[in-house]
């Protein structure tokens, strides 16, 4: 990955989802935490995340979904990343990612089977995601 000082994240809300508030909060939280953040906003397709990640030489992709269709929207994303030369890029997903009340451990397992490195339930704080990113990107021991 790139040798720039800051780690680069691609963030956005996937599919036909227009929930913009959480996306803005994440943008500020990740930037504050010392990441270089490319924010694609709402209604982002898998291809758009991937194109941005290639061009910006991103270190991880963070997918948000709030409208319950996340599982459908995220299907095949890992395979597309592999195909596009982004083999092994950390993929993180979070929000209200499935319909109805389901045991989150089941949901998490399904997303991990789809190739996501981490999946977070509704109500996760940005700090938890930042911690997970630091861990995935081997940034432990950094102050910020």
């Amino acid at each position, binding site marked *: 990955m790139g040798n720039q000082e800051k780690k680069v994240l691609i963030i956005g809300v996937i599919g036909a989802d227009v929930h913009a508030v959480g996306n803005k909060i994440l943008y500020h939280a990740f930037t504050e935490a010392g990441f270089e953040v490319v924010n694609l906003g709402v209604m982002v397709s898998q291809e758009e995340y991937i194109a941005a990640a290639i*061009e910006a030489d991103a270190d991880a992709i963070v997918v948000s979904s709030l409208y*319950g269709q996340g599982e459908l929207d995220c299907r095949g994303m890992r395979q597309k990343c592999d195909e596009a030369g982004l083999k092994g890029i950390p993929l993180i997903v979070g929000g209200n990612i499935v319909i109805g009340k389901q045991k989150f451990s089941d949901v998490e397992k399904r997303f991990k089977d789809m190739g996501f490195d981490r999946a977070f339930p509704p109500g996760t704080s940005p700090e938890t995601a930042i911690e997970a990113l630091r861990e995935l990107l081997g940034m432990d021991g950094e102050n910020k």
Partner: protein
Amino acid sequence: MKNVLLIDFGSTYTKLTAVDITNERILGTASAFTTVETDICEGLTNGLKILEEKIGKTEFFKCYACSSAAGGLRMVTSGLVPELTGEAAKLASLGAGAKAIGIYAFELTEDDVLEIKALSPDIFLLVGGTDGGNRDCILHNAKMLADILPEFPIVIAGNRTAAAEAKRILKNSEVYVCPNVMPKFGVLNIEPTQKQIREIFLNRIIKAKGLSRVSGLLSDILMPTPSAVLKAMELLSNGTKEEKGIGELVGIDVGGATTDIYSVADGMPEQMNTVYKGLPEPYAKRTVEGDIGMRYSVQGIVDSAGFDEISKISGLSKERVSALVEHLKLHKDTVPNGDKELEKLDFALSSCAVREAVRRHAGKISETYTMMGQTFVQEGKNLTHVNQIVVTGGSLIHTKETEKIARFAYFSPDEPESLRPKNANVWVDRSYILAAMGLLSSYYPDAALRIMKKELEFHGDCQ
């Protein structure tokens, strides 16, 4: 009285426009065959003779020129992702008045570079990666290019952290480094690159195109003709401190081989419930449709519109349309010259050319339903509220039906997704002065603007 001579060296004609700056009026225009193969001075001398016959012997205290001779400014670009830096490179070169003869994305292959060597462009634009982003692609492409020992100048305008290394790799070539065309994701910065392209054109290309022999006559400015036309459109739209412009506009130039569309307009979404996707486009944007033209590219018009549509618009039978189109392909210098059938056919062909080229230039909107209700996704520019259309180019200014043809640029309820102008005034460049006024605008913007407002033939009642 201060007189200025403006010259447009075209691939078939040299066009001259004489302007009286003091009184802000056109003294006269003339055109003569261009003869780049033998001596470009010949076309100019003949043109000057014709001009003198029209307006008498005239002293010119300055002389400026633009050129699209010898194929124009031929460029090849390479970027990383086609929709991102690939698109930015294309926008940069088209906006600088170039003809994009090759557009590449991702890593260049051995076959690609052989193709590029054969194309032998006037300038190569090498980009890729946001600043601090991907370095591998642009460095790989620099190495691939270095292998073919390029004899053309290369402009590097990609990831700034890789620019110096790319320049080292290409140390045996003429290399210019510019700021990144896409420094951050979704941010375009194409002006510095365009400025560099014009400088190279000025210093290097004019020699190769046989124009240096006349450069003694030229005062100093020389730019590619489409770049001059774009400057004229920008001036006409934006105005100057002294003189108001006509506001946002769409420009149309249907030629024999290509169709150029210009827009000087913001075009961003107008409604809160519309989400914009893709790269933001430049305020002054030029696109070139290489497959849409009245003679050399007539097949492209037929392919996109179909015989049924051309037959419907022209009122000729499908069989007749087909036969006449075949004739045009064989005889590219055909002009209607009073022939009623050919006039009808040309009317239909140019109408279809305008509709297709503006359709490709304008943005698109699509409707989706989300949990939050109806939402729209817009890609490209929304031109629906642009209410000025400027028309130039031989095939449109030599017909009486120009205004009708221009209206084929309009939005159509049959294609609500295509964001074309809903209603517009039409300005016709009947005396063919736009490129000349673009040249003049570098020194006398107020005069150039007032002359355009006076000379362009106006149709319409839009406020």
